[in-house]
Structures are given as structure tokens and as C-alpha cells.
């Protein structure tokens, strides 16, 4: 679509693979409830950094893999991440200019939306409501956003991903 050639697609794929691994890596019981939504974070980053490369379809595909890996209803995370990717793309020019703490707050909103959509689906099919600490995943996501952002940015610059 663009005239410029794309570079470093492998880096994007690798970061997504790493996020998927972190999603299922075995953790002690209490830490499982604090696991941030790694795939969501990486997706938001690439949607902000390279909106012409990573977008709605990537979000859907990654969501489908998350569904498969975590054993949820097929399409549950796919739908949620599609919408998260869409909103990030819609506002990427604004979010990019935010200072990092404000960006983290925006990420919190997006991650909560992801969880809310997933929760809505699971309630819809008759699963019981999760405990209050369900929302800790999103809070952890907000806390780890700055390091994730800087790490992925240096990766992107180091490998000249465009």
C-alpha cells in the first residue's frame, strides 16, 4: 500500500510471539491473577508506532491465538482485541503525543475495555462473575506499560522497523 518498503517484520512477529509465551508461561498461583495482558500491550504499541502495518486484522489473529492458548471461547479475545486495535488506530496520532504517564492511563482504559468485553462474553454464555481482583490484570498492564513502551521503542529503532 505504501511506497516505502517495510522493514523488520520479523521483529514485530517475534514480539508478538514473546507476548503469547508470556501469556501462558506457568506462574505461581497468586501471580497468575496479576499477569498483565501482554498481547494487548504489544498490540497497542505497534498500533501506535506503525498504524499502517499493524492493525485490526493483526489484533483479531492474535486474539484468536490467545483464545486457543488460554482455552476461552473461540472469538472472545479476538473480538475484544479487534476493538482495542481499532480504537488505538483511531486515536494513535493523539495518544502518541501524550506524556508517558498519560499514555499509561489511556492504555489502562483500553485494557479495561478488553477485559470488559471478554467478561461480557463470558457472562453471556453463563459463566459466573470473576472476583474483584479480576481487574488487577489491567492495573498491572498500566504499571508495566512504560518499560514495555521503552523496550519496544528501542527495539523498533535498533532494528529500524518501519
Amino acid at each position, binding site marked *: *500500500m*505504501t*511506497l*516505502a518498503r517495510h522493514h523488520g517484520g520479523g521483529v514485530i512477529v517475534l514480539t508478538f*510471539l514473546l507476548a*503469547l*509465551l508470556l*501469556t*501462558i*508461561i*506457568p*506462574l505461581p*498461583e497468586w501471580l*497468575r*491473577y496479576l*499477569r498483565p495482558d501482554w498481547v494487548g500491550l504489544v498490540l497497542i504499541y505497534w498500533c501506535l508506532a506503525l*498504524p*499502517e502495518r499493524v*492493525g*485490526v*486484522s493483526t*489484533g*483479531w489473529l492474535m*486474539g*484468536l*491465538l490467545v483464545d*486457543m*492458548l*488460554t*482455552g*476461552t*471461547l*473461540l*472469538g*472472545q479475545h*479476538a*473480538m475484544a482485541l*479487534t*476493538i482495542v486495535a*481499532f480504537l488505538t*488506530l*483511531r486515536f494513535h496520532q493523539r495518544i502518541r503525543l501524550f506524556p508517558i504517564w498519560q499514555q499509561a492511563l489511556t492504555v489502562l482504559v483500553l485494557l479495561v475495555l478488553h477485559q470488559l468485553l471478554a467478561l461480557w*462474553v*463470558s457472562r453471556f*454464555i*453463563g*459463566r*459466573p462473575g*470473576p472476583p474483584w481482583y*479480576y481487574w488487577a490484570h489491567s492495573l498491572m498492564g498500566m504499571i508495566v506499560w512504560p518499560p514495555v513502551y521503552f523496550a519496544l521503542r528501542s527495539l523498533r529503532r535498533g532494528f529500524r522497523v*518501519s
Partner: protein
Amino acid sequence: MKLIFTQGPSITARLVVFVALSVVLMTMDHRQQHIESLRAGLSVVVYPLQMIVELPGSVYGWFSESLATRRQLQEENASLHTQNLMLKAQTQKLQSLEVENIRLRELLDSSFQVGQKILVAELLSANLDPYQHQIIINKGELDKVYPGQPLLDANGVMGQVVHVGPYTSTALLITDTSHAIPVQINRNGIRTIAIGSGTINRLDLPYISNNADVRPGDLLTTSGLGGKFPPGYPVAIVEAIEHDPGQSFAHVTATPTARLDRSREVLLVWPGETHALKPAAAPAGDASGADAPPVATEKTP
């Protein structure tokens, strides 16, 4: 040159398409089992990821096994030897009882199945959604695992297989809120249904009437009535009974006998398939498991 508005209005279109696709997928996955083949295909796609997650554990297991001292091995061998002797002695008694049982049942003209085909499977360490009680095991369609197949551990019933892929399958534990299992009280044969509570160490028995003879410590075994679980396997032990005079049913809770959150090795059972006695070779702590040949162990009939 990079264009800013390369995607234009099409992202909205894509959003609509993908959300619609997701909704269709979810409906099909929930309502019917039409997309089991899609699930099986995707399970092959995610299999490498699950294997990578498995790697540190299997490397550690391999190291600790190959670096174990001679003394440790000897001690372990000795204790296993003693255990084996004890189990053998118990089996001897069991065999004579079983034969006697069959004879008595023949007198009564009722059928009784003894011996079932059993396969040892191992849990993959990958974490699933923490709010659902599901596990992944390293046996799949290639080992003739089928949806609905019962899953046991050394102490009792664990759950049943829900999705089967070529190399792996997903199983639902008996404590998941969407799971129910027909049971009976071992002491007096009262039949009821045990429903998952969503807590890993509790089952609910909501259909026991207030005047039923239930005591804490009663063993619940599978009744075999649902047709999915073979009869006679231990499921849970009754923990507490609360009588509410305003309700027609007592509030009974039970603790599963299987170690649902700790077992690494599980047993897959094929009810109704009897197999001749073969020397059993257990996989020796091989955590990778996937390429190990399926080991069919079976109970002596």
C-alpha cells in the same frame, strides 16, 4: 515516502468484518460443536508455543534426573519396591474379590464390567485462563482420545476431555462451574449430582433432600449413570452439611479426592474396553512426553 492516510476508511469496514466474524465464531463454538476441526487445527498452530513454555521444566527434570546421586536412586528404588509389594498384595486380594463378585453377579443375572483400558498422560505446564478450571494434556487424537472421555488421577476422578487436537487435548475439571458429575454415596448408594463450585477444592451437592442420610466423611463415587464416567471411581468426600428448614434441599459441600491442582500425571480411561494383561512400562519422568510412545497400562481384569 510514507503516506499517512493509507488505511483510510477501510479500518472501520475491517472492524465490522472481524467483529462479525468473531461473533459467528463464538456462536458456533458455544452453540454447536461445528468448529471442532478448526480448534484441532489451531491447537497444532499453538503447540510449538506450549512446547517452548514446557522446555524449562523438562530441562530441569532431565538434569535433576541425570545428576541424581546413586544413593538417592537406591533409596527411591527401595521405597518404590516396598510400595510395589504392598500394592501387589492388595491386588491379590482384589482379584479374588473381583472373581467372587462376578460369580455372585452371574447368579443374580446382572452384568458387570471389569477392567478398562487406561493411558497415562501428562499435564502441560502452560497456564490457561485462571477463571476456568481447565487443563491441557499431552495426548490427543493420535492416541485415540475422544471428547467426553473421563480423566482420573491416582486418587479419584479429575474431569473429562472437552476438546481434542492431534497432539494435545483440553480437559474440564470437575470443579469448573459448567461441570456436573453423577455420583452416589458409597455407604448407602444415594444417587445425586455433584456440581463444580468454581473453587478448586470444593464441589456442591445441591440436590440432596433435607432428610437424606448423609454424613461428613462419606465417600462419593461415580454412579456411572450419565454414561460418561465409569462407575465406582472415588470423586469426593462430603465435608459439610447445612440444613435450612425453609429449603427442601440441604446445602452439602464435598472435597474432591483427586489432587486437581497438583497432579502432573493423569489417567485417561476408555470405559468398556477391556484389554489383556501386558507388562506396563511407565514413562520415567519424561516431561516432554509428546514424542514418547503412548504407554497403554491396564488394570488386571
